[in-house]
């Protein structure tokens, strides 16, 4: 199953709703292209909604790190929203859970971005 991505704007924050798998190949490319496209358009407050992402492999983890770093290097902020247990556990064992800013509530997540 491939990954789907759609974006919406809420109070100046771009929420990216992802669903499917972020794995080597198509899924990782979709995530990379989506984030780079947003940054190039000046949309630098990005909330990645992973609520419907049911699988991430090491390549997908690498893409999340890359997206986080790319946004930060361009003066943006990228946060994660609605982690499934599988994704949560993966970020825990790779010690990345505390690196990412992880939100469980969309409204609070949107408000957490700097104005």
């Amino acid at each position: 199953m491939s990954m789907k991505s759609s974006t919406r704007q809420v109070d100046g924050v771009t929420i990216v709703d992802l669903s499917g798998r972020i794995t080597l190949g198509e899924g990782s490319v979709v995530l990379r292209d989506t984030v780079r496209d947003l940054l190039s358009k000046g949309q630098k407050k990005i909330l990645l909604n992973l609520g419907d992402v049911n699988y991430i492999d090491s390549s997908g983890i690498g893409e999340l790190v890359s997206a986080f770093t790319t946004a930060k290097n361009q003066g943006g902020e990228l946060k994660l929203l609605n982690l499934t247990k599988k994704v949560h556990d993966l970020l825990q064992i790779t010690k990345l859970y505390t690196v990412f800013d992880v939100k469980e509530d969309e409204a609070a997540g949107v408000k957490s971005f700097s104005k």
Partner: protein
Amino acid sequence: MSADRVSYTLDSTLETVNNAEETASRMAAEAGFDDEEVMKISMAVREAAVNAVLHGNAYDPNKKVTLAFERTPRDLVIVIRDQGKGLDASKIPDPLAPDNLMKTSGRGIFLIRSFMDVVEIHPSHTGTEFRMIKHVPGNAADSKEAPQ
């Protein structure tokens, strides 16, 4: 249950990675692992297959990946072999080290070791073999070893 072994010879493609993962998922479920363990086993196999296809065989159409599953009463044993130059596992950096935490790659073998009970990496000049074992929960062999 008697030993049950099946093996596949696969091309060095992304499709092989997906097939290996799906086959591992099916074999693990048939061996009696719960959903969480099935996910871990299939992800370990996926990561080993990625390693074989990308880093071992480098997508070379002339090189194959072999994948073998063996079920015993005690274990599910999975072996993945490539035809690359041989992986030097000692040179793989620790992905949990502070300097490596934000790297975008290098977590595959760490995940394999995290998810499987036994992981042996056997490199040679003709390729690298990953031998991964997951102990079957509540297996007959354990019962035999239980104190009387």
